């Protein structure tokens, strides 16, 4: 019996190893997927400088995180091909924040320990939040590509720069869009996540400030089985418009259930649902649904080259935040060039002085709080199974 057990233990260990090997070779991943690019530096470079990329590569938000990582890798590759930054070759290292605050602090500490000159990334606001102080203490400039909860502003010791408009800008966009569509009463639905609650609160405040009424507020926790009770509640409030502030999966379900219950008013979804997946999931019910979205590359004339090189390098579509991440990476490099050094203080000052830097998503300049100086939100509408610009 005991012998038998030993064999099984051995089998366990073997399985362990096999799994690790299996895991070590990422399936169908491009060569640039490695943590730190392993190639020898080309002769013309003076040396290498390490760039940190902090995004969720595991967990529920991994899809967006990997899109963003790919965009950053693409930008770095292009920059290196064009001679690097200040004569240095840029290499990258990944910190997986897993969309989880404690994983994010570990990831940030790891990046700081590896002595990165700067960090790009930041997807989930909740995970980005506790890292701001760490980067501030370490004097590491951090360009936040996607996280945009307004709560980040107060926690920022000055080293982080947000190139995605914050929640209040999106709320303003939602309010003006509802107004333009002739809506006078709305219902708000969130999923309880930091970002969606923030957006809901901002929208509610802005909507009521504009003199209109919010008829109901509901929450659909991720994993909730049945929406019909919530849908019935919304139907009984009978608003002109519904604003869903969270992610596409439950959003698609909500849209389908609303339409199936005969709801005919305006439905707008927030930027968390701006992925094509929403339309794919909701099918015909998605037609005519609006979305307050970040500048998705598909609609940016300047981004066609980016999309084709992205697709050439990675076997997937860029996704909603790839453009922002691409810009974030270029912005940081531009700031280094302008600062003339990789020194943290200098780069920070250069970032703050950014004036109308433009790549894909429109001009970037910062407010004194280091947030984007303009609203970059656009209104999309689902037509013929695709998002198209509504304006």
């Amino acid at each position, binding site marked *: 019996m005991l012998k038998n057990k030993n064999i099984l233990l051995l089998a366990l260990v073997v399985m362990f190893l096999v799994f690790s090997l299996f895991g070590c070779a990422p399936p169908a991943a491009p060569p640039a997927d490695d943590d730190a690019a392993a190639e020898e530096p080309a002769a013309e470079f003076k040396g290498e400088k390490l760039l940190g990329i902090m995004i969720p590569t595991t*967990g*529920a938000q*991994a*899809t967006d995180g990997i899109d963003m990582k790919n965009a950053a890798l693409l930008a770095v590759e292009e920059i290196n091909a064009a001679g690097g930054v200040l004569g240095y070759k840029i290499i990258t290292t990944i910190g997986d924040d897993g969309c989880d605050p404690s994983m994010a602090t570990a990831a940030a500490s790891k990046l700081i320990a590896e002595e990165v000159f700067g960090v790009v990334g930041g997807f989930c606001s909740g995970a980005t939040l506790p890292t701001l102080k760490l980067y501030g203490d370490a004097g590491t400039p951090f360009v936040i590509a996607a996280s945009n909860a307004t709560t980040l502003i107060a926690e920022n010791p000055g080293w982080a720069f947000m190139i995605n408009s914050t929640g209040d800008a999106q709320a303003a966009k939602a309010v003006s869009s509802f107004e333009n569509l002739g809506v006078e009463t709305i219902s708000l639905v969130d999923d*309880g996540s930091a970002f969606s609650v923030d957006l809901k609160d901002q929208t509610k405040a802005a909507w009521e400030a504009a003199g209109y009424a919010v008829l109901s507020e*509901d*929450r*659909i*926790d*991720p*994993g*909730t*089985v*049945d*929406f*019909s*009770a*919530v849908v*019935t*509640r919304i*139907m*009984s409030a*009978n608003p002109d418009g519904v604003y869903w502030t969270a992610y*596409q*999966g439950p959003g*698609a*379900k909500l849209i*389908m*259930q609303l*339409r*199936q*219950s*005969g709801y005919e008013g305006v439905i707008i979804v927030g930027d968390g649902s701006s992925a094509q*997946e929403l339309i*794919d*999931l*909701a*099918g015909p019910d998605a037609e005519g649904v609006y979305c307050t979205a970040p500048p998705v590359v598909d609609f940016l004339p300047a981004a066609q080259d980016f999309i084709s090189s992205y697709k050439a390098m990675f076997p997937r579509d860029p996704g909603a935040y790839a453009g922002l991440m691409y810009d974030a990476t270029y912005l940081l490099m531009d700031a280094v060039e302008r600062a003339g050094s990789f020194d943290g203080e200098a780069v920070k000052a250069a970032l703050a002085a950014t004036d109308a830097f433009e790549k894909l998503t429109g001009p970037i300049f910062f407010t004194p709080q280091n947030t984007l100086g303009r609203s970059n939100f656009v209104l999309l509408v689902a037509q013929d199974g695709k998002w198209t610009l509504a304006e």
Partner: protein
Amino acid sequence: MTLWEIFLQQLFNGLLIGSFYGLVAIGYSMVYGIIKLLNFAHADIYMGGAFVGLIALSFFADSAIGNAWLGIVLSLLISMFLIGILGVLIQRVAYRPMLKAPRLSILITALAVSMLLYNTVMLLTHGQFRPFRTGLTHDSFFVGALRLTETRVVLLVAAILLMFILHQFVTRSMYGKAMRAISLDRDTCQLMGINVYKIVAITFFVGSALAAAAGVMAGVFYGTVHFYMGFFIGLKAFTAAVIGGIGILPGAMLGGLLLGLLESFATQIPFIGSVWQNVFSFVFLILFLIFKPTGILGRAESERM
């Protein structure tokens, strides 16, 4: 909507979701009754059922059977069969070696099976929602003030029909009798020449098949499936099983319907609303455990103190 219309609508919502809870709860209850195991993997079996149904359905969509309902019924049956087999396999591989082991070990085993199923599906689907296209239209009609769609009515009828068939199976058939006998006294059954392992396997098959049916029906109803879809329904189905009296099959159905109704109406109460929906049902579980752990239909056996 008038109050009456809201009431009717929520009543129907509650019955429908309640019948899903009931179908899943039956699986918990049957397995618990027969081998006293809280099968954590049951919720993931439900989820797996939805995905198998989705794959089968896409198959039928390609071969263009024509009638949407026919394709759904076929994929429902396929999913029930395959997931039933999966249930038996899980029982054979993971639980059977553990029947004599300490309680804690077998519970952890069940948890491990659950984790395995859940994470496998998560990896395979990249954690994304998948559309469950049925090709059904959702033209609605009114019965009085109640707004219904064909899908909802058919699903409710199907769920109740499945419960009825199960009830007949358990009360009338030889297997059903053996099943109930084993839940009373396993050792004696063994002595009486009942093949206990076989009956346990059949129990797993039936319980898993019902969960798979609920999964496919949920897919048809909600239009999307997701690896996470089993988590809350698992918790709630267990609550339903406890409310009805664990180990008692009509209790599981009753508990499911009751919980579904309670939840639907609770959403309409201002202080509870949708925000507290998931907390609400759980509080019910605790209340039942404090005041009536045997559930509504459970008889108080000669008490062991």
